[in-house]
């Protein structure tokens, strides 16, 4: 399944285990709000070119960890590296430029920009994006190239017919798709999706899953937060389980489904809810 299949086969199934070729390595990251320890991750490595799901009950610190890793929040201590480069204290916009882009749990579509503009704004290295470049630069050529790329991507996500509509007029599911497509315009190496399936209807969920697998097949690394275990089982190469701010288990999906700690901390609750 993975772009380099079987690479995780010989990795031990224990929290904090080292990966053969980690693109992202986290060490001793801690964040507390008031007296509450929101995140406390001793060690976590993310394998390049895989789909890693981050699961755990509400309040386990998954989104906070995303915020910390992408520079939207700052930890009290700890450090983490992307491709070997330290990311501590790097502002969020620079994290994105370094190749790690995130989406948000509550979709942030730029409502009064058209769908196409939403895509174009995300493109990297635009000459016309600087003040003087915008006024006097020759940006039309780059713009045309970006537009072509954006339209291809919109087509892939089934949004091309909406290109000239305001993003604010899209449905919730379409916005999720747009947000993912827009994140890809940044040409990231790592894409971090915060509950991409939440509030999306089943048909769209299938196509979203297809897109996520396709990303991995193109060599990108995907980390995503998800609650639905079926989804996680279906597409993940590796699953990381968080509870009360820390990583309590990691391993391939099948291993996690059988792990008692996980069932206690998380799955048990969900199974109890199911009819």
């Amino acid at each position, binding site marked *: 399944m993975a772009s380099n299949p079987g690479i995780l086969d010989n990795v031990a199934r224990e929290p904090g285990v080292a990966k053969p070729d980690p693109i992202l390595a986290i060490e001793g990251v801690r964040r507390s709000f008031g007296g509450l320890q929101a995140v406390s991750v001793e060690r976590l490595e993310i394998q390049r070119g895989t789909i890693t799901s981050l699961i755990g009950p509400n309040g386990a610190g998954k989104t906070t960890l995303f915020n910390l890793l992408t520079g*939207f929040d700052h930890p009290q201590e700890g450090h983490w590296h992307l491709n070997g480069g330290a990311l501590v204290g790097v502002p*969020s916009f620079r994290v*994105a430029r370094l190749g790690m882009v995130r989406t948000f749990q509550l979709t942030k579509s730029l409502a009064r920009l058209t769908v196409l*503009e939403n895509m174009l*704004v995300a493109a990297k290295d635009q000459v016309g994006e600087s003040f003087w470049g*915008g006024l006097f630069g020759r940006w039309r050529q780059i713009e045309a190239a970006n537009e072509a790329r954006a339209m291809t991507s919109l087509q892939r996500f089934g949004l091309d017919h909406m290109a000239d509509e305001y993003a604010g007029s899209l449905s919730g599911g379409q916005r999720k798709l747009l947000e993912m497509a*827009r994140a890809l315009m940044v040409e990231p190496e790592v894409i971090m999706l915060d509950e991409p399936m939440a509030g999306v209807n089943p048909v769209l969920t299938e196509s979203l899953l297809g897109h996520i697998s396709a990303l991995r097949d193109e060599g990108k690394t995907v980390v995503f937060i998800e609650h639905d275990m079926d989804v996680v089982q279906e597409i993940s190469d590796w699953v990381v389980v968080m509870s009360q701010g820390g990583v309590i288990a990691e391993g391939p999906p099948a291993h996690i489904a059988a792990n008692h700690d996980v069932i206690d901390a998380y799955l048990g609750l969900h199974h109890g809810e199911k009819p």
Partner: protein
Amino acid sequence: MDWLKILIDAGRAAVGVPAAAYALSAMGLNLQFGYTGLLNFGHVASMMVGAYGMAITVDRGGSLWLGVVVGIILALILGLLLGIPTLRLRADYLAIVTIAAGEILRLIVRSSWAEPLTKGILGIQSFADEFHDLNPIPVGLYGLGRFRFDERTVWVMMLGWGLVTVVALFMWKLTRSPWGRTIRAIREDEDAALSLGKNVFGYKLQSLMVGGAIGALAGMFLAIDQQNVTPDTYIPLLTFYAFTVVILGGPGTLLGPITGSMIFWFLFKLLDGFMTDAILNGWFFGWFEATDIGPIRFALFGMGLMWLMIFRPQGLFGSHEEMLIDGQ
């Protein structure tokens, strides 16, 4: 009540010098508020800094044109100083600091400490002779009937609407570029822009500074017309006039500030003329006297601003579609 006179006076105001000045000032604010979503409540400070920068330069023996450059540079510096502490924080912090800074700056300009430079409360006069001496228009009245302007006013109007045209072209180029698209993205959602690798703080700072420089142009233009700068001209009210103009015309639109300003001054003079006549004719049962016209006008202005912001946030002619999106 002489309706024709009131209407013609209102029409004159809609194309006159103040309308041009406010179109300019509102274009600067529109870049900040309409396109970038910045709540700059101290826009009047840019106007003041521009006007004083120019007047002081001339007063100290510089040329008017050097003064214009000085005014613009000072406005850029002001934007930088106000932006650095506030633009990383929520929108309201910028509003608080800018409105405070505007007032404090006015206090400093009128103080006896700054008097050697600013001439205190009396201000500086007659610094724009260079411009008025260039007037090629023969002495006379131009226009039809009551709708007439003298040669001096026509010359100033030419400058004003000329500046409006130049700035509008500049804004057209700027806002249609990827830079303009990025600041609109920031207006819609800062975090989204950050997550896409945009240096939000840098863009906001640029927008604040450039908008301020345009505001300074407006201030200089008004000062050139009046040949007079005094500190107490630059009260916070002027900022809110500009806000009303921007919202009337439609925030984040290229021509909004221009139509907004014309409508604003038309309504303003209409109301003024109506109130004056109505009070003279005793229409309000003697409740109000002539001195109340000013305050009543400002109270109505406040209501108008509230009404606009609540019911027509996309401007009088704003698209219905955009309005619906805004409500979500």
